[in-house]
């Protein structure tokens, strides 16, 4: 067995080389599946199934609400920490006195609402869980008028189907989280079922204090049955629309344009 050893060694090397090649081949074959457009269409069909199912079992169900004792001691600031855009910075310097929420699109009564006007509407305060797509969870208290109230006041035209939220920040496109620098501002959208849900509010306060810049001052969306990326911060305007085609790449949101589900109920 003198030559056996070297034989075995070289055989083992051959095996491991073969293993690496086969492993590498398997990896790239698998990654090919991940990038395949035709397969992607089938895979994406699960999103519609999930949405239909979740609407069937709880179209009007309320998200669980918590107590002050459950608040996260340190609610994580995620996404944009502070919009760098000059327009936003100007408004921030003025304490958002010049900020107006533009409500337009397919409405009979377009509006421009200042913060005091939003605060004069009936308010809803809710302590809810914030479920990040990455897997972490935080609990916070939010206060603001229901979105449905504002939409009713604006009067929806018959062909209205979605509400698009235009935000102040150009997310900046962190390379690790979705690639290239963003060319458009952050945006999000809801259909009318979630827009008129009683817990869907435009929050100006968090944990009893005005929203901090990190958490979306002066106004952010809370849509409590969907993931964190739907909770648009720095909301500047609402467009009521029939189709999402005119915004970004047409998928209904900043992260949706980067492959994430538009229906973020799971």
């Amino acid at each position, binding site marked *: 067995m003198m030559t056996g050893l070297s034989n075995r060694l070289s055989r083992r090397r051959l095996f491991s080389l073969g293993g690496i090649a086969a*492993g*590498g081949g398997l*990896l790239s074959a*698998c*990654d090919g599946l*991940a990038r395949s457009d035709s397969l*992607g269409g*089938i*895979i*994406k*069909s*699960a*999103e519609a*199934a*999930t949405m239909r199912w*979740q609407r069937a*079992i*709880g179209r009007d*169900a*309320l*998200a*669980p609400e*918590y107590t002050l004792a*459950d608040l*996260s*001691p*340190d*609610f*994580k600031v995620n996404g944009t920490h502070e919009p760098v855009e000059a327009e936003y910075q100007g408004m921030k310097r003025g304490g958002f006195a010049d900020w107006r929420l533009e409500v337009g699109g397919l409405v009979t009564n377009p509006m421009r609402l200042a913060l005091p006007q939003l605060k004069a509407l009936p308010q809803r305060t809710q302590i809810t*869980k914030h*479920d*990040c*797509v*990455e*897997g*972490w*969870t*935080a*609990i916070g208290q939010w206060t603001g008028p229901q979105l449905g109230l504002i939409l009713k006041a604006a009067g929806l035209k018959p062909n209205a189907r979605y509400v698009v939220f235009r935000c102040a920040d150009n997310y900046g496109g962190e390379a*690790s989280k*979705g690639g290239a620098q963003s060319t458009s501002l952050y945006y999000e959208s809801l259909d009318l079922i979630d827009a008129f849900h009683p817990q869907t509010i435009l929050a100006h306060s968090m944990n009893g204090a005005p929203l901090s810049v990190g958490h979306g001052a002066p106004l952010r969306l809370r849509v*409590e*049955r*969907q*993931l964190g990326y739907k909770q648009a911060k720095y909301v500047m305007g609402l467009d009521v629309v029939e189709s999402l085609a005119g915004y970004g790449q047409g998928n209904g949101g900043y*992260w949706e344009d*980067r*492959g*994430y*589900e538009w229906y*973020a*109920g*799971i």
Partner: protein
Amino acid sequence: MATAADTIEAPPAPPPPAAQPYLFHRHALLVRVTHWTNALAIFFLLMTGLNIFNAHPSLYWGPYGASADAAHRWLEIGSKNVGGEARGFVRVGDVTVTTTGVLGLSTAPNGGPNPIAYPSWATFPSYRDLATARNFHFFFAWVLILNGLAYLGYSLVSGHLRRDLLPKPGELSPANIAHDIVKHAKLQFPKGEEAKRYHVLQKLAYGGVILVLIPLVILTGLGMSPANNAAWPWILDVFGSRPNARSLHWVAANLIGLFIIVHLLMVVLAGPINEIRSMITGKFRIDPEKA
């Protein structure tokens, strides 16, 4: 296609003369089809699950859980610098284990260091891609659930579950279980008539996966969904919170992974060709007791 004869039990016809190996109809068509569909779904679910975990490689216990909540974090997979050298580690409670090369810090396909919880060879896609991993994960979650319901429905109605999978009262005696463990340790697999039925450890493993782990992984998965939390808050009540559900989802997935390793090992040891053929064509070769 599932006729009465399509079951795992001995056919009514008397077996051919002993001492001759013969083919025995072991697995019903529906069991075979759902088994392979399930295997495909589980492989994608595990590998996309690891990719999803990589987006936030910490687990928490309690009402909330995020980076700042150190008191609630019971598991963490990451990398740190120790004396100028990068190290991968897994921390569970107060115990930290160095796992450089596999967990926390591994080698990227291009040969460079990869500071990531699970290595690229264990995840789908092999690179960080939460959006794609989630899309595949939820697609195969639907496959797992619908396929599992078909299997369970069939197994209940046909009697497969009661007859072939649930241990009979006598089988659960410590003596019988000990006997089975010894036989496994000696790598003695049943022959003849004995080989036609699952033995007790096999029943416990299959039953545990079908009736405990897969339902648990599905319920804890739903427990992480905000829309499901609204529609079915009882799931959240059962597990206590979303971070708890996520922790238990990870534990259940690990136990399923452990089952798969043992399952594949047993298939290989028991005679992979005969075993795998039985799960493809349904036919299983029975060797007589005395060769």
